[in-house]
């Protein structure tokens, strides 16, 4: 077993065994610490994946495959179902793998410090680690059936996190609300993943293999198969991403989930949809992608505009941030819909930036709600008078989210618009203009958020706040703040590794 194969297995095995260990350790705090250690080791393994990349070796052959993993592991599992345990990492998946490992570590560390009301801390840490296994597996899978399998793993642990630790209060109405939100999440997501299952086997039945490396480029699939497969896969991923009008599970789930749940949901869970769209739907059925691109583009821009307009009318902090995800993911989807190198690059960096910034925003929103015991914007004002540091961080995150140049959010949104302009034609120019307008609306609602929460006279809920921040909070937030700056100033952190695979992918799209 080479080092790369070992690391690939380790990235999945460490959190999986970590979850088992956490469940087996009877005492609460040691278990949570053990879980955090497992998450830290996972991050180390994920970072190490980038060392000793050998992605160019296949370039020697006459027709190099469009997916050239740095490391790959390919073992037969269930031949009767065309399922192989085929993992691999390349420049498209690696940033997301690292982001997942990082956010899980931060969430586990945060849980060491504070456990949301509702259940035991160690069960929460164990579930977080299981969710991590599912997400990482989805990003690493190079077999369609395996991809589907990991896609499904996330569902129930996340449901349990929302039901068990989410919401505010224990009165029957709050309990019913969070249960409803969790059910909606579970059923919507399952709806998406069963379509994924059908789509996967439409491809497998036609091509006779489930190997993503072999399938990328759509070779050997008829036009009809590609259209059917792309439709099924795109709807499946549109539910997860989420793309308007299939987004309605998102605001409820994100609002009701506990802070760490929201961070993971918004930070990386949504990326499974956009990643799947790039790697599976577009990669395997490019002809279907070209056919559906205008529809996808229109829906993406609709998501941007509708998401922003709804945000302008929101009165609750977490719900506003949740809805802002709809708009941000709209930019990502617009980038993918252009099917150009620029657009897909924009989508990838937009993915990562949204994960960092929205993760941070949900952490901050959770901190504010924990302190002020309310999330209603009307009852929050003057935060900078009583808690200047918290308010400063919120301002930083909001400004990053609205896409200020120099911060992470800028690149994805700007270049999605640029890519749409580059495609040309009336439709895409119009879409670009509307998306840019949506960008302006994004700025409007985030500035409105800042005006209401940080400025003005301290409200009753805010007046009694202490200015200090806990060490655990700083430890959880600092990496995200630094990354938002780093990716903003040096987007090549993400784009450098993604350039080669994206170029290879776009080549087979033509």
């Amino acid at each position, binding site marked *: 077993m080479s080092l790369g194969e070992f690391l690939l297995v380790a990235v999945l095995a460490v959190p999986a065994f970590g979850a088992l260990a956490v469940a087996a350790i009877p005492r609460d705090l040691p278990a949570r610490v053990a879980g955090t250690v497992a998450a830290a080791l996972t991050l180390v393994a994920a970072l190490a994946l980038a060392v000793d990349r050998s992605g160019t070796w296949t370039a020697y052959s006459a027709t190099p495959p469009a997916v050239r993993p740095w490391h790959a592991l390919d073992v037969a*599992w*269930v*031949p*009767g*179902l*065309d399922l192989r345990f085929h993992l691999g990492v390349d420049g498209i998946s690696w940033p997301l793998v690292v982001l997942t490992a990082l956010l899980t570590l931060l969430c586990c560390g945060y849980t060491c410090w504070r456990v949301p009301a509702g259940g035991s801390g160690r069960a929460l840490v164990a579930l977080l680690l299981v969710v991590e296994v*599912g997400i990482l597996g989805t990003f690493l899978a190079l077999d369609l*059936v395996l991809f*589907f*399998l990991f896609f*499904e*793993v996330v*569902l*129930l642990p996340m*449901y349990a996190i929302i*039901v*068990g630790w989410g919401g505010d209060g224990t009165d*029957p109405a709050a*309990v019913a609300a969070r*249960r409803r939100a969790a*059910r909606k999440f*579970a*059923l919507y997501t*399952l*709806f998406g993943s*069963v*379509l994924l*299952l*059908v789509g996967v*086997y*439409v491809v*497998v*039945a036609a091509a006779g293999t489930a190997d993503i490396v072999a399938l990328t480029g759509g070779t050997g699939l008829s036009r009809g198969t590609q259209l*059917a497969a792309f439709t099924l896969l795109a709807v499946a991923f549109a539910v997860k991403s989420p793309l308007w009008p299939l987004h309605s599970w998102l605001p409820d789930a994100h609002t009701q989930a506990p802070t760490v749940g929201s961070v993971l949901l918004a930070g990386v869970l949504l990326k499974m949809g956009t990643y799947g769209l790039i790697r599976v739907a577009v990669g395997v059925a490019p002809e279907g992608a070209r056919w559906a691109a205008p529809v996808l583009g229109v829906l993406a821009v609709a998501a941007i505009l509708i998401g922003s307009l709804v945000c302008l009318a929101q009165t609750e902090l977490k719900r506003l941030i949740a809805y802002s995800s709809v708009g941000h993911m709209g930019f990502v989807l617009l980038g993918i819909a252009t099917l150009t190198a620029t657009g897909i690059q924009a989508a990838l960096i937009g993915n990562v930036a949204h994960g960092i910034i929205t993760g941070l925003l949900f952490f901050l929103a959770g901190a504010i709600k924990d302190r002020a015991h309310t999330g209603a914007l009307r009852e929050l004002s003057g935060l900078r008078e009583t808690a200047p540091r918290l308010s400063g961080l919120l301002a930083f995150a909001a400004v990053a989210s609205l896409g200020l140049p120099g911060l992470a959010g800028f690149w994805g949104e700007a270049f999605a618009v640029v890519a749409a302009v580059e495609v040309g034609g009336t439709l895409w120019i119009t879409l670009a203009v509307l998306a840019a307008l949506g960008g302006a609306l994004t700025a409007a609602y985030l500035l409105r958020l800042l005006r209401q929460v940080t400025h003005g006279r301290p409200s009753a809920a805010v007046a009694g706040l202490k200015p200090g921040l806990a060490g655990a909070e700083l430890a959880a937030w600092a990496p995200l703040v630094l990354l938002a700056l780093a990716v903003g100033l040096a987007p090549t952190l993400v784009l450098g590794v993604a350039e080669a695979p994206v170029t290879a992918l776009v080549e087979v799209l033509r």
Partner: protein
Amino acid sequence: MSRVQSVDSVALLPAYLAAGTAVLALLVDLVLARRAATIVAAATGALATIVAAVAVGAGGERRTFCVGADCSYVFGGRAALVAGLVALLVLGVLALSGPLLRDGVTPVGEFCFLLACSMTGGVVLGAAGDLITLIVAVEALTLPLYILVGLRRGSLASAEAAVTFFVVSVVATTLTLLGAALLYAVTGSLHLERLGAILADRSELLDLPLTTVAVTLVLAGLAFKVAAVPFHAWAPATYDGAPLPVAAYLSTASKLGGVVALLAVVQHALPLSVAGPVLAVVAALTMTVGNLVALRQRRTVRLLAWSSVAQAGYILAPLGALALADVDARSAAYAAALAYAVFFVLLELAAFAGVVALRPAGADGGHLDDLRGAARRHPWVGAGLAFALIGLAGLPPGLAGLFAKVTVVRSLLGGDAAWLALLVALNAVIGLAYYLRFAALLYTPADSAPAGDAPAVPIRPARVVAAALAVATAIAVIVGFAPQLVLDLAGS
């Protein structure tokens, strides 16, 4: 050609052992009259049957009771799988019956005897090579159940359930027999393989209305046994009225028997151009109706009953693709149906074991609310039940159930029945709604329930039931990680 038929007793060994178990249980009860001894005798017999089925099945296909090339008893890989599985399920049901038999109301000897008789039917069923053997085996499997369902003495629901089951089942058998007779009238043959060959050779027979009627009657009669819509109405009432272990047996071994019988006639005998579309419609209706009605159930066993109706739809679904499929896709469809059935009975048995463990000894399934918070009081048993339910819904961590669904969808898409695959997929979403509600209920804190709902006496799960749950869960976990084991067996 010798006048005396040579009988291959090795091929019949599992059936001898199963029948011997019934006699043994009766004798032990008569001679020793000790509860434990009878149960141990029956369990030992079931265990011996499993061993014999595996041993004989490993030695390649054996045929006996042959007339020329046609044999009435063919013990191959699939027969071994069915025989072993039925015996295993009997073993599991015996374990589940522990608390029921301890209360002294249920006659132990009769219970074990009847269960073993039913097992004999199941063991022979997989090997049946002609329609008469098949129908007799199905009847041997079902007949003892009429009594077992009504065994809860002094319970009106139990008696009602038994009568419903009896009447419906007898009608179903009549239909199947009539169909078999008509098929014989058309073709002059009863052996399954010969029937298939005749119908394939002389395609003018297919145009006879009589053939269509005969095929439909055979299928309808067997559809009763698997509780497929529109022949399902007996199942919820019967399951709910029967003692819990018997309900478990009905929804696992008895259903498996129906599936195997259907598979046998469809695979070997019936013309697929007629049977395929009928089965496709039946499967589509069964899963949809079963799932939609299950959504509204408030009683535990009724929920499990309706969900098992829906599951029968998934089992039949691959067969719905038969009319259009080519040879490869057909054998994949048979294997998929059987594989799904195997995954399903394991999880269903685990689910029933969980319910039995969490209910007072000898009680019925009760209301869903009676199980509220049960997993908090009994974490291991509750987790086992939740695992089984999640598996039935077809989601990780219940990988066995997930692979079962995957198998079905794959075979449907391989056989060009995309609409049915999509329907299976969408039904899985409906299914999740109630399985999830049930599983989540187990973890809901009991204090949020209205006061007075909590059981007065704390329930201690019986050890033997918990052991059965553990074993079933362990097997489900193993085949979840290595589904190829089941797929290989089902495809052989």
